[in-house]
């Protein structure tokens, strides 16, 4: 579609009723392949996109968007933006940004991935399912075996001189297996996210998921009490992701985070460093400019336990009298501007995963938690989560454990970190950035079981 022409028309038609204007366009091309019992059970393809519009009138900003990008929508989006801006009475100033001096040059598009023939990708998913089923006769079914690819294109153009675009691609693969022994049913899963197809290894993915499922057979609950807890890397990343709202300036300013006035204070154990790195190679959250056109930055959020900064966009930074951290974020062209990390991760520590286990007399290794969207409260920091994993005794893994909950408060958990592993891994990307962590040992958490 000829966006250039449409954007010009929008700016031309809007100039009478609006002072500054911005157009944000997102286009996506996706493929998804699911395999079931040796066949391509589901094959999805798409090409879609949307256009979001922001316009300033009388110092107030109004939003509108459309997925029908043609001339018929031009007048409607301008009219809607004017109407939406009219009633804004927030005292925080929001502005269309005039651009940063310099932007990092990033190569986020891997040509090799798009050139790899579809057949090869389909074969890969089929091999993955076959391999998983062949590893052990207790693997009774596969409840998820899929490969997907997303190619995205972001355009930001405004009447203050910004004209930016960025193209990237990424692929993922996910496997979930069901294992059964007598009446005992368990599941195990594995995944990979990367734009380098040569890293996709069906044998290791199948092995990981099957081993996880099998190792959970015979799991039982454990006596309620306080235990030292080791969170496996991607699980700590999931928990961290849930509590990202406490680090967003938006929430701090609105009294929805207890990190208010905690800059330069110790909020975590001194061995804990948290980094936001938008320039990571092959990073799902990598980007040279944020969703309002600010150049992105590498920064430490927590440096050896000390809170260094919140995540900011232009509006929240302006309110605090500092410059934006380049974390302006639009969930999609349908969402207003908010804030999100890029590639956020806990820096590797100096213990190996084995050291973490060996250092534990009697505790639990948690390999999965459920209910983060409901059992964790990003305002209070409280969490109580269904979990499973293994009991550790005298520095060795003893048996699988399930039907337990672990409960704590995230603010306390950050301070109770005892050891950090050196096995940084990124979790499956959710909304807003990509989050990673090494495995982490917490002094103790309350466990509810029998």
């Amino acid at each position: 579609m000829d966006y250039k022409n449409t954007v010009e028309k929008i700016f031309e038609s809007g100039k009478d009723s609006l002072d500054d204007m911005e157009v944000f366009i997102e286009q996506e091309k996706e493929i998804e392949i699911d395999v079931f019992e040796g066949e391509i059970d589901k094959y999805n393809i798409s090409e879609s996109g949307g256009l979001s519009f922001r316009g300033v009138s009388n110092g107030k900003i109004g939003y509108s968007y459309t997925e029908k990008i043609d001339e018929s929508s031009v007048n409607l989006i301008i009219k809607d933006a004017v109407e939406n801006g009219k009633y804004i009475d927030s005292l925080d100033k929001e502005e269309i940004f005039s651009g940063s001096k310099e932007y990092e040059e990033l190569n986020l598009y891997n040509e090799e991935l798009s050139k790899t023939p579809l057949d090869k990708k389909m074969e890969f998913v089929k091999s993955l399912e076959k391999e998983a089923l062949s590893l052990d006769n207790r693997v009774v079914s596969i409840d998820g075996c899929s490969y997907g690819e997303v190619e995205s294109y972001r355009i930001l153009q405004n009447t203050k001189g910004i004209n930016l675009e960025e193209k990237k691609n990424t692929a993922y693969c996910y496997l979930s297996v069901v294992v059964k022994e007598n009446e005992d049913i368990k599941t195990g899963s594995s995944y990979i996210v990367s734009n380098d197809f040569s890293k996709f290894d069906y044998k290791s993915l199948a092995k990981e998921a099957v081993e996880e499922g099998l190792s959970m057979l015979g799991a039982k609950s454990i006596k309620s009490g306080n235990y030292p807890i080791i969170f496996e890397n991607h699980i700590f990343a999931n928990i961290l992701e849930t509590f990202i709202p406490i680090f967003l300036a938006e929430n701090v300013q609105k009294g929805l985070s207890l990190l208010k006035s905690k800059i330069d204070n110790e909020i975590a154990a001194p061995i804990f460093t948290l980094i936001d790195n938008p320039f990571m190679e092959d990073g799902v959250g990598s980007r040279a400019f944020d969703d309002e056109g600010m150049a992105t930055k590498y920064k430490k959020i927590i440096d050896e336990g000390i809170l260094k900064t919140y995540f900011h966009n232009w509006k929240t930074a302006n309110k605090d009298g500092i410059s934006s951290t380049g974390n302006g974020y639009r969930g999609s062209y349908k969402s207003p501007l908010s804030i999100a990390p890029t590639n956020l991760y806990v820096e590797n520590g100096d213990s190996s995963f084995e050291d973490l286990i060996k250092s534990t007399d009697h505790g639990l290794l948690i390999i999965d938690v459920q209910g983060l969207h409901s059992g964790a409260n990003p305002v209070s920091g409280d969490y109580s989560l269904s979990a499973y994993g293994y009991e550790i005794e005298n520095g060795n893994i003893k048996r699988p454990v399930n039907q337990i909950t672990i409960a704590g408060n995230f603010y306390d958990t950050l301070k109770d970190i005892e050891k950090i592993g050196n096995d940084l891994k990124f979790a499956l990307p959710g909304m807003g950035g990509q989050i990673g962590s090494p495995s982490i040992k917490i002094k103790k958490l309350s466990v509810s079981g029998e």
Partner: protein
Amino acid sequence: MLNKNIIENVLYAALSTGGDFAEIFVEDKYITNMKMVGGLLENSISGRDYGVGIRIFNGFNSVYAYTNDSSEENLMKVAKEAALAINLEKKDIILNLMKSDIKNNNKVIVLPKSVEKSKKIEIMKRGHFGAKNYDESISQVTVSYLDEEQNVLIANSEGLLAEDQRVRTRLAIQSVATKRGEMQIGYSAPGASMGFEFYDNINAEEHGKEASRIAKTMINADLCPSGKMPVVIHNGFGGVLFHEACGHGLEATSVAKETSVFSNKLNKKVASPVVTAIDDGTIPNEWGTTNIDDEGIPTKKNLLIENGILKGYLVDKLNGRRMNYEPTGSSRRQSYKLPPTSRMNNTYIAEGKSTFEEIVSNTESGLFAKKLGGGSVNPATGDFNFAVMEGYLIENGKITKPVRGATLIGNGSEVLEKIDMVGNNLKLSQGMCGSVSGLVPVNVGQPTIRVKSLTVGGRKGDE
């Protein structure tokens, strides 16, 4: 929404490589979203979602493609591209599209689009003040407003041609209470398949007060004890227990591939005899009600469990083929961007005979979960979890002090057997359910029930 000739041409193109069924889904949706923080309108956004999805079946397998460009030229291109995934002899299918008559379950009086923004903001302000003025411990109030008008057209190679309009309205109020450097939240979020007349039926201020009442109660609550105990789950959103613990396992998405604990259990006992459960997509103007599902089939009242015996599943067309089971009008999707699959509409446990007072007074000691938060389930194992938003201890058959931070965990088939009392006070509540075909509006519901024994995860004792 799309010319009949174009629809026919696209369906023929989709079937050109031997597919045995093709379907086209056109969506045109207008949304308004507003957010108010601390009584001030923070942002307001509105826009139009527009796209077309094309689905092709080949036996048990399916191909799906979507696009925003509905020109005939592009749709033909997309249909042909999708069809490339199938490589068979073209079947002899002749199209004869017949427009379906649709029964309207959701009568709408005032289309949200026709209402001035200022009136919508007025409603939000009422919610805000109700919440803010409730108590001095309330430190922040966030009010979200949503309305949408979704127009859909569904046509398929079996001759179906159906159009429907879905109008939905919702107000969500979140209150935060602060005390001693701690924060707790309370939430109330009524919604319906109605237009702006919804606000003649509900009182925004009362919902604000309710959100604040919960936040205030919880900021003054003690930590919840942990362990196994009897749990009395109150009516309304308590129904999320059944939704998670059982409902998802009855969706054909997992039953068809026999990855659900409820696969092959039809007409077998799966629950205690006091449990009867229903999914009903036809209740007038309810949040989870639609006239037709996203495959164009009229919604139904589906009996799932009757007196503890499994009576039915929720089935879509594709999984129905694998299961050899008629579709139940339960196929849903968030938007044209996702192919539809079997989902819940308004799911609830039917009324029993006990009164609320009987249930509480017959419980020596345990937990009263008055309001639940969300939860999730692994359909393969049936293991579920959900959060208690507002909980109280039951001591000597009486509800005593409030407790916070509790999570309930268990196993779906086990918990169904352990429900030993069902009240006579059925109530439905609104939620958004996320699964393979995206987020869809659903009602959950139940009367007050008692679960003999459930693992309660609390934090008491971790100091």
